[in-house]
């Protein structure tokens, strides 16, 4: 019964967090004086008619509380408002953008986890050896590089050899990429630089956490027992320590999802990747508030959802959690 309790608790927390995100979203945009929506003077090229239409559209003459409930009600029905720029509903556009973001972010993150875990294990195993020093120094360096710097450096290094933009054409299948395979290849080539940038900015942190987690695990009594039994180092690390040392990685991935999405925004901005980060940046530069608001909400929900999944995974992996 304990597990049902735990799942319900985490689910309640996830839903509550999403509710908080929605509320903060509302307050940021509507209630704070001089904020985006109430200050219609900041809408670009607004004619009096448009202003009036927007006032009616957003129900700005109603009470704030009434507005808030209208906002909630509309959200429940999947209505995130209409983009100022192209007058189309925000939600389907953002969903489409999210479809472009997910593969890039997933590939980059998974690659970073694999590389990070591998070097973390090697570092902890050969503690204080040359391998450890090189790997740890590299990890610290890459951890310190901001994604925009790394992205720009990769852009310069691979200018001409790998495409730095134009993903939207690859996705649409323009410019001669006919057929499924050639399109897939086209998309793949476009994904190399963004995914590599993301992977490199993330792997350092995974390496460092994996290393210290592994070091802590190697200090446990059962590791000493295993060694006393005469097991080889390799066997101790892989069969005994690894599983326990991996637990913090699960937490780390869940905890840094928000940061990963942040990195994705910058990377999409640099490589003109038609994902949700790019959409948000465009929304910022064009003062398209419904789009920005919707993008933030979708990202928040995505991160909260992934955190919920990570919580469940952690529960499955570590029975001590339920206590």
């Amino acid at each position, binding site marked *: 019964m304990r597990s049902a309790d735990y799942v319900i608790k985490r689910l309640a927390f996830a839903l509550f*967090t999403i509710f908080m995100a929605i509320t903060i979203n509302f307050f940021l945009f509507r209630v704070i004086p001089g904020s985006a929506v109430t200050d219609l003077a900041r809408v670009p090229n607004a004619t009096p008619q448009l202003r009036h239409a927007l006032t009616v559209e957003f129900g700005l003459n109603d009470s704030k509380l009434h507005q808030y409930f209208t906002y909630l009600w509309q959200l429940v029905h999947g209505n995130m408002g209409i983009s100022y720029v192209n007058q189309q509903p925000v939600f389907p556009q953002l969903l489409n953008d999210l479809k472009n973001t997910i593969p890039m972010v997933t590939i980059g993150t998974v690659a970073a986890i694999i590389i990070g875990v591998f070097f973390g294990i090697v570092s902890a195993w050969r503690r204080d050896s040359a391998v450890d020093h090189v790997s740890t120094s590299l990890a610290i360096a890459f951890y*310190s590089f901001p994604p925009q710097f790394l992205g720009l450096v990769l852009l310069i290094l691979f200018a001409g050899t790998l495409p730095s933009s134009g993903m939207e054409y690859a996705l649409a299948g323009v410019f001669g990429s006919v057929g499924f395979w050639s399109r897939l290849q086209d998309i793949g080539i476009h994904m190399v630089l963004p995914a590599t940038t993301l992977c490199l900015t993330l792997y350092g942190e995974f390496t460092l956490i994996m290393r*210290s987690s592994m070091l802590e695990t190697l*200090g*446990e009594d059962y590791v000493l027992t295993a*060694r006393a039994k005469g097991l080889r180092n390799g066997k101790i690390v892989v069969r005994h320590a690894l599983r326990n040392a991996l637990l913090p990685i699960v937490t*780390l991935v869940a905890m840094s999802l928000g940061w990963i*999405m942040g*990195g994705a925004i910058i990377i999409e901005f640099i490589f003109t990747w038609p994902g949700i980060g790019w959409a948000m940046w465009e929304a910022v530069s064009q003062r398209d508030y419904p789009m920005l608001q919707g993008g933030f909400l979708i990202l928040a929900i995505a*991160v909260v959802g992934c955190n919920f999944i990570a919580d469940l995974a952690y529960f499955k992996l570590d029975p001590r959690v339920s206590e």
Partner: protein
Amino acid sequence: MSMLLQEAAVGPLPEVSRRPLRTVLRHHKSGLIGLGIILFFIVIALAAPVLMPYSPTVQSCAVFAPPSAKHWFGCDDGGIDLLSEIMLGGRISLLIGFAATLVSMVIGGGVGILSGYFGRWVDIVLMRITDYLLVIPPLAFALVVADVWGPSVVHVIIVIGILQWAPTARIIRAQVMTVKERVYVKRVRAMGASDTRIIARHVLPQVAPLLVANTVLTVAVAIYLETTLAFLGLEDPSSVTWGTILQHAFDRAAVSAGAWWTIVPDGIAISLLIMGCFLLGRAIEDALNPRLRVGHLSTRRWKLRPLVGLGPDAI
């Protein structure tokens, strides 16, 4: 680039010596390097007006002139000396980094201590808010807030400060909860000391090293966020910071011009400072974590060879 400190990783605090920082630096050389890097950039930032070889606003060489003996880091799209710009840019980047960290340490430390010390409903309310901030994508949130409020240095400081206190609050709370239960705290309480006195005299000194480690790591995150917000054009475009230098390079086609010197020195300055903060913060954190000192793997490597079939002189 999230906070590397983990609640679980910090065990019970070892004895705090009279000069904790000195002890840490003696045992962890990387911490000393980190401190050196941070001090280096602080000195450069403070002395920038004297050290700058050229004006950061007036053209002093050709557009996108490559690095030369006269202009070590080359020139940007306006023919402005990049070395001068980077020296000056460090001022605002550091200011924002430290100021935002101060904001987040005051909020985070305060929330953590209150939450851990008083427990019950205070804890529940404060921790729900903290949990919320922990899962919200920081950059997306910063984007929204910076955009709604408009670009300015003060706004960026507030945004980063508000975004960064949550991990600190969590870590400090966990530590306060264990300190609170120690015998000596209970003893002072029995002697009639007030909550304020217990917190100020007995709890705060115990969590201080952790708070310092956290502060240093937060500076790194704050500077990272500052450069990122500036890169996305959410900072006052007229101010020169490490973030806006990168942004200008990207905006004004430095990449297609092949002008790597507009990107690399500036990016390395940002990375070095972040690295310095990280090294120092991690050294303090490692010093606080006794679990990292023991390892049970065999350090010697040897192999058993079967001697069968190798002949009489195999040994």
